[in-house]
Every structure is written in structure tokens, then in C-alpha cells.
């Protein structure tokens, strides 16, 4: 069943050097409960694509459909976990996780109960009264994920959430994320430039071209879960995906160097 659908999404920006075409005619259907990874070179427009799905940016052409209904504005049903977490430094961990529920008008006791249950899931119960700056980068991302899940979104949009983490913390969070996905069966769109990460997490990997971004190729990944980043099938699949991505990365690097 289709959960999320993108139809002919095209996005450009007017810059000093003329029009910059960021996304060109992107069509995509994501099934209910599917975990889709989008990989592409840095600066190719992955974040723009995610922001458009979230409704934080508007495309010039095309539509975003959720359960067959066109969506225009941003809404917690399509919730973003941002690259740097985007947690609020003036709130405690618990208050951060509660934030969206408070906005939604959920009463205090109920929302604290929900927030605490997700903090427990992310092994953060001990830190509910801490402030954000007291946490490590890995803990911050776990809070961000808990905050996302607490809103019980239809689709979870993750924008390179593990890019700033060290390898060990990242491996641990890969395991936790797979665990959560197995438990909640959330539909996930996960953007990354890390090919191995995509092969480890996804049901399907989409490779984007560099500027304008369009979908170059799709790779269904059917290996059993839970997977680990060093599993031989993950490594082998990543090689195949990377071969497809390599040209785009080279183009990105050469264009960015010329500038």
C-alpha cells in the first residue's frame, strides 16, 4: 500500500548566478512501513527533498501525497529528525521530548508519560532533567529520535541524523533504529551520504544524481534484519551502490572545486 507519494517534484532557487535547479522531476512511492534511504553526494539536494516532504519548503512543480491526499503545509504527521538534532537548549531533555505534544494540547500528565516511555526506549531515562549541552552528540541524537517518535508520525524523515557521530555510537544507533523500526513499523525516509549506512538500514536505496537531483537508480535490499554495518552482504551491496554513486560524487567534487 502506498503511504507517501511524490509526483513530479521540481525545485529551483533563484540565485545571483541565475536559476539553480535543485530537484528535477522526482517521482517516488514509499510503501507503508517501508524504510527508504536516499543517498547522494553532499550538496545534491537531499535535504531539500526531505524539507519538501515535510512541507517546510515548497516545490515549484509537483505534489506530495500522504495516504493519497495532497499535503501542502508542514505537519507533525511527517516529522523530521534534523541533522544536528535541533533540540531546544532552554528546555530539559524531558521538556524537549514533550514539546510537540504540548503544542498538540496533550495534557501534562499524559504527555510526560508518553515522553518518558520513548526516553526509556532510547535508554535516556536517567537524563530526563539534563539540559541539552550536558549530553554527548550521540545522546542528543537519541533525544531527537525520541522527540520524533513521541509525536507518533505517519512518516519519519531523517536528515543524516548520524553524520556527526563516531563510528561506535553510530553502530549502536543503527541497531537501535532497526529495533525501533521493527517494533513500530513506521514508514521512514532516511537521507545520508554514507552508502554502507544505507545498505545496512534500508528496504530500498535510492541513488540521486548531482545537480539537478533526480533518481538515478533504485536498489531493493532484502537481507534479513537485524543487520550490522560489517555484514558481508551489507558490504557487498554497498560496493554495488557506490559504483553507481561514484560518477555523481566525482562530478560534485569537480564542480565544487571549480567554483
Amino acid at each position, binding site marked *: 500500500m502506498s503511504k507517501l507519494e511524490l509526483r513530479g517534484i521540481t525545485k529551483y532557487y533563484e540565485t545571483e548566478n541565475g536559476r539553480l535547479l535543485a530537484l528535477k522531476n522526482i517521482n517516488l512511492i514509499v510503501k507503508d512501513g517501508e524504510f527508504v534511504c536516499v543517498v547522494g553526494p553532499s550538496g545534491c539536494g537531499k535535504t531539500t527533498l526531505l*524539507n519538501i516532504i*515535510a*512541507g*517546510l519548503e515548497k516545490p515549484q512543480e509537483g505534489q506530495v501525497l500522504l495516504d493519497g491526499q495532497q499535503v501542502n503545509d*508542514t*505537519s*507533525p504527521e*511527517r*516529522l*523530521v529528525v*534534523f541533522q*544536528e538534532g*535541533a533540540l*531546544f*537548549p*532552554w*528546555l530539559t531533555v524531558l521538556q524537549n521530548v514533550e*514539546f*510537540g505534544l*504540548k*503544542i*498538540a494540547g496533550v495534557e501534562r500528565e499524559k504527555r510526560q508519560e508518553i515522553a518518558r516511555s520513548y526516553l526509556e526506549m532510547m535508554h535516556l531515562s536517567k537524563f530526563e532533567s539534563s*539540559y*541539552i*549541552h*550536558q549530553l554527548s552528540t550521540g545522546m542528543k541524537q537519541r533525544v531527537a529520535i525520541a*522527540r520524533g517518535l513521541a*509525536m507518533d508520525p505517519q512518516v519519519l524523515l531523517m536528515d543524516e541524523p548520524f553524520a556527526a557521530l563516531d563510528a561506535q555510537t553510530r553502530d549502536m544507533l543503527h541497531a537501535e533504529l532497526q529495533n525501533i523500526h521493527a517494533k513500530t513499523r513506521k514508514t521512514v525516509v532516511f537521507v545520508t551520504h554514507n552508502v554502507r549506512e544505507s545498505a545496512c538500514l534500508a528496504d530500498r536505496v535510492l541513488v540521486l544524481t548531482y545537480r539537478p537531483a533526480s533518481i538515478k537508480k533504485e536498489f531493493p535490499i532484502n537481507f534479513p534484519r537485524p543487520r550490522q554495518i560489517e555484514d558481508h552482504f551489507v558490504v557487498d551491496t554497498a560496493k554495488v551502490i557506490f559504483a553507481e554513486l561514484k560518477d555523481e560524487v566525482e562530478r560534485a567534487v569537480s564542480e565544487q572545486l571549480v567554483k
Partner: protein
Amino acid sequence: MSSRSHIRGLADAVLFLSVLLGIWELVYRLAIYPTYLFPSPAMVTSSLFSSISSGLLPIGILTSLTRLAIGYTISIILGATIGLAMVKSPYLGRTLRPFGVGIQSFPSIAWVSPAILWFGFNDYAMIFVTVMGALFSITLGTYDGIRNTSPTYINAARNMGAKGARLFFFVMLPAASPKIVSELRHGWSFAWRSLIGAEMIMATLGLGHLLMYGRELNDLSVVFAVMLAIFAVGQVVDRLLFENLQHRISKRWGLATEPIGL
């Protein structure tokens, strides 16, 4: 702050003040200057006590603080309102910001002349000068603080369903709070300076007036005693009102926490 660093800070302060007093006393005893131009610490202390017991200083402090409280409150209300209007209207923001920055470096004591003509020699004139001293740093603090809210915070909040008043009160205002509090603190010190200046010129009670009174009596020990009172009031208000607040915010946000000084 730990109690150990408290004690250490106190010890540093006592040492510093002792050295200062020592040098002062030494210069006095060398008798380079006549006594009426250079009173000793003991003379200033006795002036301080006599002006306290005569009620001169307490009344002066009370008068100045009342004016300051009124002027500063008006500055906050007006400054926050103008600042928010500038956030709402890009035209106002574009035009008022450079104007505000310019007028902030303008000596607010210059407002005394128009104030006397507009209001006369009275409290209104002095409150007006006080407001002009503090208004623009509070206005710009509000405006800059809110406008520089990280777009990521705003996007995250909007994505979680916040908009309108709730986006403003739950996200933009707290995000701007470090900047706003630091500008409130600046605004307060500008207000204090402006008021003392205005009182010196208009000479109607208040600490600024007492400074001129001491000069007219040719009694520098009174002048120094009043200066000490001005210094003390400034320090006490700054500590009580702002330092704790700023310290709490810094601690919460993980900004630099150890305050410098006493």
C-alpha cells in the same frame, strides 16, 4: 559557582581594596595636595556616615532609584514593543535598526536640554532622559535576539505544529533570551548613567544633585561619599537583578558560566 571560588573571589577583592586604600592614604599623608582637594579615606568615611545619619544620602538614593525604576520600566515596555514591531514589519526593521544603532552611541545627556524645555525642571524631564538612555539597547536587543533565532529551531517547532503566538512564546522568545537579558543589563547601566547626569544638571534632589551640592560646599569628601553610594547602588542592582538571571541562563544553555570579578 562553588563556595571555594566564592571565598577566593572575596579574598581577591579584599586584597585589591586594601591596596587601593593604602595608596590613597599614602598620597594623602605625603601632603602633595591641599586637604580640601584630596581628602583622606577617613574623612570620606566620616562624610559618608554623617550624610547617611542626616538622611541626605538615604533620601538621595531613594529619589534616584524611584526615578530609575519608573524610567527603566518605561524603557522595557517601549523597547520591547518597538523591537517586536520591527520584527513584525521588515520595513520598520530595515529603517529603525541603523537609526537605533546610531542613537545608541549618542550621549543621552544631550537630551537634557530638550527635556527641560519640554517638561521643565522636574521628574518628568529626568525620567525622559533615563528612558532615552536605555530604550535603544533594549529595542535592538529584542529585535536582534528574536531575528537571529536559528532557522533550525523555527523549522523544528513548525514541523511539530507550532505557529503564531505559540511559536513566538515557546520558541522565538526563549531562543532570544540570552541576548535580550544581556541587552537589558546594558540598558540598565545606560539608564543609571543618564539619570545621574541629568540630576547633576537639573539639580533637584537625587544622587546626581548631591554630587553638585558637595562641589558647591567645596567639600570633596561629600562628593566622594556620594560617588561611593552611586557605585554601590549600581553594583547591588546589577548583582541582584541581572547577574543571577544571566548566570542561570548561561548555565542552562551551557554558555560560559564563571562570572568575572567579585
